């Protein structure tokens, strides 16, 4: 099991098991390997298309690195088990698709409220309901943001290729550990099932972040207190004699429940939000192309980012000054950045595999004099370069 101080042995094992070089694999598999490189040593899940390959890869690979795999009776139990495991110090993950992600929402909120680091993967598929179960989609943009009840912050990351799935999974773990928060990885069934080349690095090339632990008994008395000004409390793990009390109810810095004092709730929930805001720069991540002299901006995410890039490249060949912005951390949405880019252009196009979700976030940061248009496609077939190019030409 990966523990602090055991890195040399772990690195040697990873090198032996997964020598650096080029591999040919699916996005789902890349997520699993990314998790293992990030230090994930506990996985609980329930089968669902198109996420099952993550579970299968974890079931096969985790025992090799002395990690634990367990198939639970449902998705609710899966996220519950990884939260429990996280409190024992194990970096933990579960993966599912839209329907299972819906079932996980209550406990996702529990992880937010109890500041439990976990990674939840949603390999998006076409809905609503069972929809086109085997087809990819991007319909869970807001389920990731607002799926659980109550006033909560969330971090969600969306990879754009198989190789990106590997690295963004690692980033999801690192943010989760650093800030003691659940992080959602919004993958999709198309990248999840696409096989392409990916370079597996040397483990030394991978930056690993561990959660902060209490330095002494005194710090351990405040599992939910801002003891060092970072807004992220150290995590007094179970089994160390700290007598830690954890509850999803509103609690004081000691962890004890207090649902009657408004100030206690206000202070706690505000800190949960502020700790995300304070570390915004470490959370945000995007790619941008040709944004210096652009007149038309394409903003896209996840699986739609790739045909968007193809379309922008072709538009450039035709002399159209198009640029591209791809948020990879989709929540919190990089509004300031979009506002800055939007000032430079006369039109913005937002290609995505839904009937308009990311575009609603974009809209909040764009002035009325800019043309804003969605390029939307549902039905389970990804957008093509030609479809997006046509819209760029037309605008």
């Amino acid at each position, binding site marked *: 099991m990966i523990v602090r101080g055991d890195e040399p042995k772990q690195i040697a094992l990873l090198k032996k098991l997964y020598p650096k070089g080029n591999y040919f694999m699916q996005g789902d598999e890349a997520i699993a390997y990314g998790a293992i490189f990030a230090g994930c040593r506990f996985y609980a899940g329930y089968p669902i298309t198109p996420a099952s390959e993550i579970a299968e890869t974890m079931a096969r690979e985790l*025992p090799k690195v*002395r990690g634990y795999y367990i198939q*639970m009776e449902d998705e609710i139990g899966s996220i519950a088990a990884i*939260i429990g495991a996280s*409190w024992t110090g194990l970096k933990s993950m579960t993966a599912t698709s839209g329907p299972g992600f819906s079932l996980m929402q209550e406990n996702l909120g529990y992880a937010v409220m109890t500041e439990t680091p976990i990674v939840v993967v949603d390999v998006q598929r076409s809905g609503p309901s069972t929809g086109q179960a085997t087809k990819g989609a991007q319909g869970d943009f807001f389920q990731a943001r607002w799926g659980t009840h109550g006033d909560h912050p969330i971090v969600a990351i969306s990879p754009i290729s198989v190789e990106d799935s590997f690295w963004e999974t690692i980033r999801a773990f690192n943010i989760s550990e650093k800030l003691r928060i659940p992080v959602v990885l919004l993958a999709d069934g198309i990248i999840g099932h696409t096989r392409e080349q990916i370079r597996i690095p040397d483990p030394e090339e991978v930056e690993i972040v561990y959660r902060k632990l209490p330095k002494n008994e005194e710090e351990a008395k405040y599992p939910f207190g801002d003891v060092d000004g970072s807004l992220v409390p150290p995590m007094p793990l179970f*089994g160390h004699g700290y*007598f830690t009390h954890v509850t999803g109810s509103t609690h004081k810095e000691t962890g004890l429940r207090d649902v009657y004092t408004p100030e206690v709730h206000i202070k706690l929930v505000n800190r949960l939000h502020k700790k995300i805001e304070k570390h915004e720069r470490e959370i945000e991540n995007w790619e941008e192309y040709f944004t210096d002299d652009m007149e038309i901006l394409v903003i896209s995410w996840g699986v739609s980012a790739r045909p968007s890039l193809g379309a922008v490249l072709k538009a450039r060949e035709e002399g159209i000054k198009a640029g591209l912005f791809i948020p990879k951390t989709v929540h919190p949405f990089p509004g300031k950045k979009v506002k800055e880019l939007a000032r430079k252009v006369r039109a913005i196009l937002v290609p995505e595999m839904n009937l308009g979700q990311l575009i609603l976030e974009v809209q909040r940061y764009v002035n009325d004099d800019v043309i804003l248009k969605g390029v939307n496609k549902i039905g389970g077939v990804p957008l093509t370069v030609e479809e997006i190019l046509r819209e760029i030409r037309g605008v």
Partner: protein
Amino acid sequence: MAKEIYTKYKMAKYLRKEALPTALCPGCGGGTVLNAFANAIDQLKIDPRDLVVVSGIGCSAWIASPYFLADTLHTTHGRAIAFATGVKVGLPDKKVVVISGDGDLAGIGGNHLIHAARRNIDITVILVNNFIYGMTGGQVAPTTPFGAKTTTTPYRNIEHPLNIAEVVAEAGASYVARWTTAHVYQLIESIKRALQVKGFSLVEVISQCPVQFGRRNKMKEPAEMLRWFLKNSIPISKAKNMSREELEGKFVIGEFVNRQRPEFTEELNKLIEEVAGDEDAG
């Protein structure tokens, strides 16, 4: 009174004093369960630092969380056993105990109960069965006796109660027992056995809720409910020779199973040793 308890009550050393007094109603059976659990821990000389207590939602989830001084994980409704599964895998050498109610563990969380028993993971579940959703105001539960009155069965309950101990025994648990709050010494002994057995263990405790159940069913006083338990309890040895009809409305008490079966975390670690051992050897 809250202060007096620290000096007079021998088990007070196991309690989180800053969380007292408890939120339980006068006459509730929850205190008896907490007392029995503390005595079992004391008699077995289990260091509370080697204990993680997990609970869900409802009155019975409050019995040990936050009152018992150990690591305590107070989770969402019905999911305590699933949370405890992750805790036990991470801390296989610690005692992981779930204390919660019938609605929580056998109603909304029934699926996790059955599958944890099937998996035979080394978790001890103390399921406090008071036949009612107490905290929410006395609604019918999957354990409410046929014909009983509740706030959502104001005329009579037309559903049949779940026989939790039998279901869990059938699902594959290593140890299953049922007692009532009127059988405190037997209860302590069973909790001790449950804590010691390797595998999934369930102690179902039939408990009184005079406020939400008793007063709507002609047993307003806690003592009346305890007398009802005693009068209708049938030892399992005797129950074996009785028909289902004869057992209608009775509480079968005693040990349902006590057996050895491969335990989940041991098997998981064995499997890891088999796979990773090969990797270590190259």
